[in-house]
C-alpha cells in the first residue's frame, strides 16, 4: 500500500501557522461583505459561463488582442509551448529570461526545457526564486515556500548567494532585490503567466505582490529588441473588464486575506512607436493559450467545473490533509484539493490516480472556494474514473463485488456478521485492523447487533 507520509511535527507547525494566518486574514476581509455568498455565486456564474462558450470567448480575445498588436498562439501541449518559447529566445539570441510567478510554466516544466537549450530562466517572485535556488517545486499554488521559516530562508540565501545570514524579512527582501534588479535591467526576454485574459479588450491581467510581474513584462533593458511571452491556460479567459473586477475582489481575499494583490497589472500590448525610443515596454508581446488536457476536462461535465478555478490557493489553506502532508507529498505541480482534481486529468498515472483517494471527503475546500467549485465531489468523480481505468486493483474490485452480493442479501449479511462475530475475537480483530489499531483503539463489537436486539424487543 502506498502510504502518504505526514510532515514532521516542526514542519507541520510552521505550515499551520502560515496557513492559519492566511485563513484568519481571509475571514476578516471576507466579513467586509454582507453578500459574500452572492459574490461567490456571481463569480461562479462568470467562470461557468465562460466555459459554456469557451471557443467564442477565446476567438473574441484573439481578435481583440491581435488588434492590439499581441501575437496570440494556441498551443496544444507542454512541448509545443516550450518549443515556442525556446525558439523566440534563440531568435533574440538571449541566454537568460526573467520570469514572473506562473503555475502554467510550472505545469509545462518550462525552466527545464529552456535549460536544455542553454537558456537560464530566472524566477523573480521571492518565494519562487528561493524554491528555484533549492531546486524544489512550489509547495503551494500561491505561496511557493509557505513551509519554510524565516531562519531557513536566511540560511538558503546565505548558502547559495554567499551573503551574511539574516532572518529579518526586510533584509532578506533587499538581498533578493539586489540580485534581481541586475537581472531585470539586462533581461530582454520576460516570461509570465496571466491570471485572466479579457475577451472584450484583448488584455492580460497579472496579479503579483512584489512588483516583479511588472518588471518582467516592461523590460527596461536598453539594448536590442525586448519580448514578453505570457503563457496561460485556455480556461483563463473572462468576458469583460467588469467581470475581472468582480473576480479580483474574491481572488486575493480568498487566498491571503488581502483586498487586492499589491500589484494588478493590465497589459494591452507591446509598446507603441508613438511612445518613443526611450519608453520601456516590450517590442513584442506573445500570448500562448495552452490546452494540455483542458479540453478533455471541458468535455467531462463532472470535471468541467474544476476549470473555473482562479488559483487562489484557499482550498489548500483550508484542507486538513494538505495541512498534514504538505504540498510536495502530492508529487504534482498542482497540489492541494483542486490539484488532486486537475492532476489526474492532465497527467493520468498510478501516482496521480491515487491523489483523489487521499482525502477524507470533508468538503471544507468546496465551502471556501470563491468560485464555488464542488471540489470534493469532483474528487469522487475522479475516484470513479480511476476505477473505470483499472486503477483500483482487481482484488479490490472483486472484494467490492463480494461485498455487494453479501449486502444485497440480508440473510447473507446477517449470517456473515454472525460468523464473523463468532470467529473474530478481539485479538483477531485487532490484528486484522492493524492500520487502525496501531494508533487507535477499536471499540469491541457489540455483544448483539442492532438487528438481533430489535428482533428480541419486537417479537413477531
Amino acid at each position, binding site marked *: *500500500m502506498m*502510504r*502518504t*507520509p*505526514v510532515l514532521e511535527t516542526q514542519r*507541520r507547525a510552521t505550515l499551520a501557522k502560515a496557513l492559519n494566518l492566511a485563513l484568519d486574514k481571509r475571514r476578516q476581509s471576507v466579513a467586509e461583505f454582507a453578500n459574500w455568498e452572492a459574490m461567490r455565486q456571481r463569480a461562479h456564474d462568470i467562470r461557468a459561463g465562460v466555459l459554456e462558450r469557451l471557443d467564442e470567448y477565446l476567438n473574441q480575445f484573439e481578435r481583440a488582442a491581435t488588434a492590439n498588436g499581441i501575437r496570440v498562439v494556441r498551443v496544444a501541449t507542454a512541448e509545443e509551448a516550450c518549443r515556442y518559447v525556446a525558439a523566440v529566445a534563440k531568435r533574440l539570441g538571449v541566454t537568460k529570461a526573467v520570469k514572473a510567478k506562473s503555475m502554467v510554466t510550472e505545469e509545462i516544466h518550462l525552466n527545464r526545457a529552456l535549460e536544455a537549450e542553454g537558456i537560464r530562466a530566472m524566477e523573480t517572485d521571492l518565494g519562487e526564486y528561493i524554491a528555484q535556488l533549492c531546486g524544489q517545486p512550489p509547495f503551494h499554488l500561491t505561496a511557493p515556500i509557505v513551509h519554510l521559516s524565516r531562519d531557513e530562508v536566511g540560511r538558503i540565501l546565505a548558502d547559495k548567494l554567499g551573503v551574511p545570514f539574516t532572518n529579518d524579512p526586510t533584509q532578506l527582501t533587499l538581498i533578493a532585490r539586489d540580485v534581481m534588479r541586475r537581472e531585470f535591467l539586462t533581461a530582454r526576454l520576460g516570461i509570465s503567466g496571466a491570471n485572466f485574459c479579457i475577451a472584450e479588450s484583448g488584455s492580460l491581467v497579472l496579479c503579483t505582490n512584489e512588483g516583479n510581474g511588472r518588471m518582467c513584462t516592461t523590460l527596461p533593458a536598453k539594448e536590442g529588441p525586448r519580448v514578453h511571452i505570457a503563457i496561460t491556460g485556455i480556461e483563463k479567459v473572462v468576458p469583460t473588464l467588469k467581470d475581472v473586477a468582480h473576480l479580483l475582489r474574491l481572488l486575493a481575499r480568498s487566498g491571503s486575506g488581502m483586498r487586492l494583490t499589491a500589484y494588478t497589472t493590465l497589459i494591452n500590448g507591446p509598446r507603441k512607436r508613438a511612445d518613443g525610443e526611450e519608453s520601456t515596454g516590450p517590442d513584442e508581446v506573445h500570448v500562448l493559450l495552452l490546452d494540455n488536457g483542458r479540453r478533455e476536462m471541458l468535455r467531462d461535465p463532472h470535471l468541467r467545473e474544476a476549470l473555473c478555478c482562479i488559483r487562489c490557493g484557499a482550498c489548500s489553506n483550508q484542507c*486538513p*490533509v494538505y495541512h*498534514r*502532508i504538505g504540498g510536495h507529498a502530492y508529487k504534482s505541480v498542482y497540489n492541494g484539493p483542486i490539484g488532486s482534481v486537475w492532476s489526474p486529468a492532465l497527467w493520468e498515472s498510478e501516482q496521480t490516480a491515487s491523489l483523489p*483517494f*487521499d*482525502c*477524507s*471527503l*470533508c*468538503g*471544507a475546500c*468546496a*465551502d471556501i472556494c470563491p468560485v464555488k467549485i464542488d471540489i470534493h465531489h469532483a474528487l*469522487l468523480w475522479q*475516484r*470513479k*474514473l*480511476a*476505477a*473505470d481505468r483499472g486503477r*483500483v486493483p482487481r482484488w*479490490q*474490485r472483486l472484494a*467490492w*463485488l463480494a*461485498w*455487494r452480493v*453479501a*449486502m*444485497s*442479501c*440480508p440473510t447473507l449479511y446477517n449470517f456473515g*456478521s454472525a460468523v464473523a462475530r463468532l470467529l473474530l475475537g478481539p485479538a483477531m480483530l485487532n490484528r486484522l*485492523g492493524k*492500520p*487502525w489499531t*496501531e*494508533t*487507535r*483503539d*477499536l*471499540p469491541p*463489537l*457489540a455483544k*448483539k*447487533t*442492532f*438487528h438481533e*436486539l*430489535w*428482533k428480541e*424487543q*419486537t417479537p413477531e
Partner: protein
Amino acid sequence: MQIGLFIPCLVDQFFPQAGLAVARILKRLGHSVEYPAEQTCCGQPAFNAGVRSEATALAKRFVQVFDRFEAVVAPSGSCVAMVRNFYPELLDIAPDSPFLTRVFEFSEFLVDRLNVTDLGATFNDRVTYHDSCHLLRELRVQEQPRKLLRAVKGMDFVELNDGPTCCGFGGVFSVKFPEVSTVMGEDKVAAIERTGARYVTAGDCGCLMHIGGLLTRRGSKVRTIHLAELLGGAS
C-alpha cells in the same frame, strides 16, 4: 407517522444502543417505528471507492426497502448524505424526488420535520459537540443538534471552536491513510480536551469511533456518546 429506521452498518455492529435510542425517542413522541429487517447498506463505501456499479445496485435496493415509509430516519449524517445527495446521480432521479425528501438524519428530523427541540432529557455533565463533515457540509445540519442539546437539563454545553475541522475518519480513508487520519484525529482530540468537556457527542458513529479510539488509546477521561443516546437517556 410511519417511520422506517435505517441503521447503518457501524451502528448495527458497534453502536446498537444509538439505534435503540432513536427508536425510543421517536416512539415516545407517538410515532410508529419499524425496522425493516431486510435492509443492509446504502452503498456509500463502494461509492467512495469509485466502484459506482456496486453502489448503484445497493442504492436501488435501499429505495425498494424503504419506499413504503412516510419518513426514513437514520442516526448517521454520512449515510443520509449518501442517499439524498448522491442517489440522484446514481439512480438518475431528481434531487427533489419524493423518496429523497422523506429521508432524514435523526436531529434534522426532530427539529425540522417534527418541530421538536426539547426532549425532556437530563444530562449532568459538560458536553461538547463535534460537527461531522457530512452532516455539516453535505446536509447543512448545524443548528439542529445544538438546539436539541441546549434544551437538555443540567448540561453544560460548550462549543469545540476548532473550525469545524474534520476528525480524520473519512471511512476507508482512516485505514488507507492511517498516519494522516491519526494526526487529524489527534488535533481533534486535543481541541476536545481543551474544552474541559467530559463527553463529546456527534451525529455520526464513524467520527465517534475514531475520536473514541484515540481518546481511550491516550488514556483520556473524555468519553464519546452518540447524540441520540445522550438525548434518549438510558433504556
